[in-house]
């Protein structure tokens, strides 16, 4: 259970595997093929690999054109560029036409580390949630990434898959991934922690600490932000006294606000949110940044304790 792998390595391997099976898979990158791991596909299938240089807007538009002709483009760059720099192209060319383009970004969140704020996408989930037709997936580890890429290739329509830069501990259960269906990693009756991406591991660690104190914790891996698994969220509200959301993202527009909307409209429930609060990232080691921005398992534990002081 302590296996640590790069999610982007899993992405690179998955691409080669699906590219082998499906000749319509094409891969596009913008001068980051080494970092995003699409280079593997490029080496194996040079005819179906296109590097567009440092020009993300053109890359997204070309992906749209390829998809309109029946190809299945996987488009990769860093999260900050894929979501921000090319947002208008993702909106108007890809999502508005519901084109079958898969945007798989790496280096999301503050755990990009030393490169600092210009390269730390902490708003990308919000940017993608603001566009109708976009499916959004945030895998929690390398094996889940592989399953997510397979699922994205099968799914018809635009998909945004968000990956980080650093190695992550494997926590997902094999063969469980289905777009739009959350994974219950742990049952509990006092509080629910709903997390995505690298925060799933922090949530599981927090649950261990709380369990030792006699607090029973339900842990949910909400790997799909859209379509959101409302059923599981409402179930958490019914089975436990409160919900704590966890994400490596700004609270504005992220997983927490999506969950809060579901709760407010269906079953108002005490809630706490772990995420970045209205500030930009900065340089530092990933573990230092996690502490600085209050995204550690200890921060989750405290939020749960506080929530239980006033929840029913």
């Amino acid at each position, binding site marked *: 259970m302590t296996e640590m792998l790069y999610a982007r390595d899993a992405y690179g391997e998955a691409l080669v595997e699906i590219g082998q099976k499906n000749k319509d898979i094409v891969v596009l990158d913008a001068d980051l093929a080494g970092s995003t791991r699409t280079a593997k596909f490029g080496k194996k299938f040079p005819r179906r690999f296109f590097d567009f240089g440092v020009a993300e807007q053109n890359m997204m538009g070309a992906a749209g054109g390829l998809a*309109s002709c029946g190809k299945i483009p996987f488009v990769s760059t860093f999260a900050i560029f894929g979501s921000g720099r090319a947002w208008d*192209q993702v909106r108007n060319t890809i999502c508005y036409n519901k084109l079958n383009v898969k945007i798989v970004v790496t280096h999301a969140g503050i755990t990009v580390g030393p490169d600092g704020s210009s390269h730390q996408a902490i708003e990308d989930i919000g940017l993608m949630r603001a566009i109708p037709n976009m499916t959004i997936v945030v895998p929690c580890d390398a094996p889940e990434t592989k399953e997510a890429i397979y699922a994205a290739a099968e799914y018809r329509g635009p998909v945004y898959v968000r990956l980080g830069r650093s190695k992550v501990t494997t926590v997902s259960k094999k063969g469980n991934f289905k777009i739009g269906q959350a994974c219950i990693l742990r049952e509990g009756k006092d509080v629910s922690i709903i997390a995505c991406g690298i925060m799933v591991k922090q949530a599981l660690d927090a649950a261990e600490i709380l369990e030792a104190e006699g607090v029973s914790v339900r842990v949910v891996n909400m790997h799909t932000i859209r379509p959101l698994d409302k059923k599981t969220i409402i179930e958490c509200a019914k089975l436990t006294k409160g919900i704590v959301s966890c994400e490596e993202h700004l609270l504005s527009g992220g997983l927490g606000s999506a969950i809060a909307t579901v709760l407010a409209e269906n079953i108002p429930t005490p809630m706490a949110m772990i995420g970045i609060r209205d500030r930009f990232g900065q340089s530092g080691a990933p573990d230092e940044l996690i502490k600085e921005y209050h995204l550690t398992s200890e921060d989750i534990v405290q939020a749960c304790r506080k929530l239980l002081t006033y929840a029913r």
Partner: protein
Amino acid sequence: MSHTPEKIKELEKKAKKIRRLIVKMLAKAGSGHPGGSLSSTDIVTSLYFSVMRYDPKDLRCLKSDRFHMSKGHCCPLLYAVLAETGYFPEKELWTLRNLGSILQGHPDWRTPGVNVASGSLGQGLSVALGMALAARLNNSPSRIYCLLGDGEIQEGQIWEAAMACAHYGCDNLCAILDHNGYQIDGKVKDIMNIEPLADKWQAFGWHTINIDGHNIAQILTAFDRAKKVKGKPTIIIAKTTKGKGVSFMENVVDFHGRAPTAEEAEQALKELS
């Protein structure tokens, strides 16, 4: 290749009809963009009624030629041509810009014959590039035509795409620049100068052809020549007149984005009869 005087006359007649449809549609809709629609009418009419291979019943058009109107605000022209070629009945034209219409204010997926939406300027050449790359992967003889506006090419994405089209040697792609010299705020050269045009595109690795964009013979010859260019994309720089065909709209910036009133439409239709 020479084009018979009969063919040219027939296309001129067709272009006049398309212009009438544009004026009628816009007057009925009460808003929209006549200036650029009328300036590129002869080019797009030539494409659909002489140059391109396509089948109005084949909406996926994976094997046919494709036209992508990057300057999407000139969709009244596109809609008139698509109706005239049989993609949908002419009566749809009178629903332009209405709630629930298949003819939106800018082209989108609701309209039979439109492959990819456009309208947010600067994005279309990239889309056309993707289509050209797909055609190559499919070993398809498809040619991709993309209409650009001269104001539009102030967008940075156009030059990202220009670089990439040449880098990938897309000789199955032909862009047409509707160089009418005006944009919403005034003359292109006053707002943001784009000259020297041919030099710019050549420096980006393109083959360039300069023509009078209202001379059907020149238009047809340019498309023939573009087909023969190997290893690089071609851009036809077509000098045009904004509002062409309606005296009081010609080179009048107000008609970039204003529909004619009922009286103006009546006058315009007289001139186009």
